[in-house]
């Protein structure tokens, strides 16, 4: 459903991503892993038409269901975002308006995308929040962002992204700011959603274990290039590229080599 064809992305003269190819099928979970500066976040920002500053796709094409999205106008993007594709940010707390209650901005978000009256929008929001297993969703709706914990804010962010059942969910380090138990809860919920609604998910992460657990396809990036891609078994057990091998051996593991 989403395809990147030889995509090159640059900020001004600075080429960040080179000749990036990726094919995401419907219902598939793809993880992009790599160290900082590898260009992984830039890739998913491009998919959503959200390259910051003077960033642009300078070569290649991005196709959504066979149609190029690169020449989309602002209005066309607005139609796509939220309905067809949505993004989960690393820190949903930073996405949420701090001086507005969760409920007010959630209802506003729904009404921007759908002609719904206030009460219906409110009910939809509460339903989404309870789907994310947030205890007492009415209280959450009546809270400000600072009154919620990091895990709760992240759940609100995912609930908002899921509201219109988008075909494609883009997640940028969705759990890296969270504790391990909360991370496991959120990942379980994302996978439940994926099973139930068959969304495609592209997840950018630096956590190889998480990528291996979630994904059908893992893409390893370095300095803007794809160094290797494949399924879990190929990447974890039969890596071909030296960088992938080094990366795997640097990841701390329980029961792995001890240095003391």
């Amino acid at each position, binding site marked *: 459903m989403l395809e990147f064809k030889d995509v090159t992305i640059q900020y001004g003269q600075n080429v960040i991503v080179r000749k990036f190819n990726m094919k995401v099928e419907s219902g598939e979970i793809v993880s992009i892993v790599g*160290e*900082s500066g590898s260009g992984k976040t830039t890739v998913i920002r491009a998919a959503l038409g959200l390259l910051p500053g003077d960033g642009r796709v300078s070569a290649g094409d991005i196709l959504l269901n066979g149609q190029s999205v690169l020449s989309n106008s602002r209005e066309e993007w607005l139609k796509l975002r939220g309905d067809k594709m949505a993004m989960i940010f690393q820190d949903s707390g930073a996405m949420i308006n701090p001086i507005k209650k969760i409920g007010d901005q959630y209802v506003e978000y729904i009404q921007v995308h759908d002609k719904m009256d206030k009460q219906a929008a409110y009910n939809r929001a509460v339903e989404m929040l309870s789907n994310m297993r947030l205890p007492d969703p009415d209280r959450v709706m009546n809270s400000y962002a600072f009154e919620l*914990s*990091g*895990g*709760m804010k992240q759940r609100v962010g995912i609930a908002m992204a899921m509201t219109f059942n988008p075909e494609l969910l883009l997640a940028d380090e969705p759990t890296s700011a969270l*504790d*391990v*138990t*909360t*991370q*496991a*809860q959120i*990942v*379980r919920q994302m996978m439940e959603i994926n099973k139930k609604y068959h969304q495609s998910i592209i997840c950018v992460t*630096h*956590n*190889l*274990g*998480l990528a*291996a*657990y979630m994904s059908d396809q893992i893409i390893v990036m370095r300095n803007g290039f794809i160094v290797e891609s494949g399924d*879990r078994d190929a990447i*974890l057990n039969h890596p071909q590229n030296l960088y992938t091998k*080094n*990366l*795997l051996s*640097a*990841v*701390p*593991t*329980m*029961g*792995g*080599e*001890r*240095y*003391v």
Partner: protein
Amino acid sequence: MSDRQPVLETKNLTKCFPADGGKTLTACDNISIQFFRGETVAIVGESGCGKSTFARTILKLHDPTSGEIYLNGKDITKLKGEASRLERQNIQMVFQDPARAFNPKMRIRDIICEPLLNFGRISAKEKDAVAKEYLKMVELPESFSDRYPHSMSGGQRQRVGIARALTLNPDVIVLDEATSALDVSVQKSILTLVVKLQKEKGIAIVFICHDFSLVAQFAHRAAVMYLGNIVELLPGENLVVGGAAHPYTKSLIESIFDLNMDFTQEIKTIPGEIPSPIDLPPGCPFADRCSVCQDICRKEKPKLKTVAPGHQCACHLVKEVSSMQNAS
């Protein structure tokens, strides 16, 4: 263990903060732990468990509410002013974010030598030579001594942080999440360096960390904290599925995405979230989220008891193993 003298020891160390409405937030509750030369002890736990407060309290950046801190057998809890300043030479800290820990207007040479100049151990003339010596020790080019922190990468800056902490030849170094902002390959190279320096100098390291996999590879012992309490104290190699005794540690280990995990099983987790550490009810701090909680867990707080040599656990449901070395 009893024949060895701990270089640093806390006895019933408690740190409380006042909270709104006259309530009390207990960040560290009755912590007794010993640190030995040449040994790395990790303090691990999720956010809000009190691990950073513990680190700051042993450095006396906070005054403890009660309990004592012994450094080389000497009670340093009540030291004030100059005496406290002098004692601080023996215990140094490496911070999580060296970009913020350093003065951006100082050159690396001055950053590394500042502690030595503060204590009058070298003269300003010797700065250049000393800085180069320490840069070499942390495997950085000598030419870096002219640089400013902003023109270095995160990993390089953290090496400078380590160099600076080493200058005073401390007995103890506290690493407060010192590598958590770094990429895994950089993290590994820095920790390998730390291990090497530790072996050469016999430093005791207090390794504050939230990453269990990292602790499993780099710590001799790990103290697992939950809501201000040490719930389990275990050898680093026990941080694997099946190695821990406390229900909290076990569940935590099973909720980690690890390359060695069984990918065919659904990841486990602990339901709910960590409760607020304000005005905790009596009983076990983990009782509300524990899957095997009993009546006694809500009434009485479990104490640390030895469950195997070098392995202590605070849980009513884990059987104590009688041991001669079980200290108090």
